[in-house]
């Protein structure tokens, strides 16, 4: 990192002591934090629109094949979906507690909450793995790969196309979140974050809550159509 050199530069110019995490183009830590946050919200806006396209497609196709969607959703186990919803909500709670721990300079709680969040995220992916492998073995696959031989309606493959695209894209986001959270854990163990600098924790938290927020919509749309 060049931040040390920048700080040294600032001090050489007689600006006095600066937080080593303050980059030279920001006046003070608060400004740096708010700017980073705006950037994160803009990124989240693109994420909402990315998933938005799939939601629009889902809405249109559900409107065209309500019976097929209704009959196809019986292949999903709502208990698995509900379990995953609860796991993600708890992970959102531990994530916001990680932010709180960083804000209050509680290093131990920060590390504990990051580990709990990663644990919940991994649990989510394990449940997802069992769901996916069940679908795979039954031939309940998207588009041309649909090879289920039991009684079904013609357009059920459309449901599974959306199911795999949307939960798959969501799963990729969860996986990316796990990678980022592991990096935060690694840095947190080095004592990189404290009450005056916790921007990465806060921004990852925002990302993580958005992933949770998208699942909040995916769960009723796929598991609970009736």
């Amino acid at each position, binding site marked *: 990192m060049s931040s040390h050199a920048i700080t040294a530069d600032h001090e050489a110019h007689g600006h006095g002591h600066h937080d080593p995490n303050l980059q030279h183009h920001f006046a003070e830590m608060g400004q740096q934090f708010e700017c980073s946050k705006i950037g994160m919200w803009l990124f989240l806006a693109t994420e909402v629109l990315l998933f938005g396209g799939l939601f629009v497609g889902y809405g249109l196709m559900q409107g065209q094949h309500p019976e097929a969607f209704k009959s196809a959703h019986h292949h999903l186990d709502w208990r698995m979906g509900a379990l995953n919803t*609860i796991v993600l909500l708890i992970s959102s709670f531990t994530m916001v507690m990680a932010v709180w721990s960083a804000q209050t300079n509680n290093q131990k709680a920060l590390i504990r909450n990051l580990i709990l969040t990663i644990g919940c995220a991994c649990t989510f992916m394990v449940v997802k793995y069992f769901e996916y492998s069940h679908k795979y073995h039954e031939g309940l696959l998207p588009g041309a790969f649909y090879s289920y031989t039991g009684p079904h309606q013609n357009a059920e*493959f459309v449901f599974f196309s959306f199911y795999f695209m949307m939960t798959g894209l969501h799963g990729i986001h969860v996986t990316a979140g796990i990678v980022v959270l592991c990096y935060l854990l690694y840095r947190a163990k080095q004592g990189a974050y404290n009450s005056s600098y916790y921007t990465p924790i806060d921004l990852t938290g925002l990302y993580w809550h958005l992933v949770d927020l998208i699942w*909040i919509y995916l769960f009723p749309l796929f598991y609970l159509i009736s």
Partner: protein
Amino acid sequence: MSTHHTDSHHDTGHHLHGGPKVYGVVLAALLTLTIITVVASKIDFGSASANVIIALIIATIKATIVALWFMHLKYDKPVNGMIFASTLFFLALFFAYPYIDTNSRTDVKPSNWKGPAYMPDSGSAVRGIGANFPVAPAPPPPGAKPAEPAAKH
């Protein structure tokens, strides 16, 4: 404890909001709403779309709670909330235009569909919506293999 501790809140220009107690209550509310969604999905509210709308309303309440408390929008500078709100506005536009157009679209077919791409005989190809994609194709066009033979049972 770092030596910055005393002036740290001043440093970030941030007053602390929320806290374990608030977040705990928020989590409890979200879990309760999850149970309500599941229960509501088992009740028949008259039509399929009524159930979907109720499920989406509950989901939107949950999403709002997450955005306000977990994502700190309640305490944040308005600019972040405005970015999010404008995103939702454009998402609404994105939803609106394809929906206006729904009735002029014909149905999609399975990617392994072997029948004719266009079936004027069904008489409703122009109106679309499932019309030229019968649930049980009868009779199948000569030489054409229905996509899912099992559907004939």
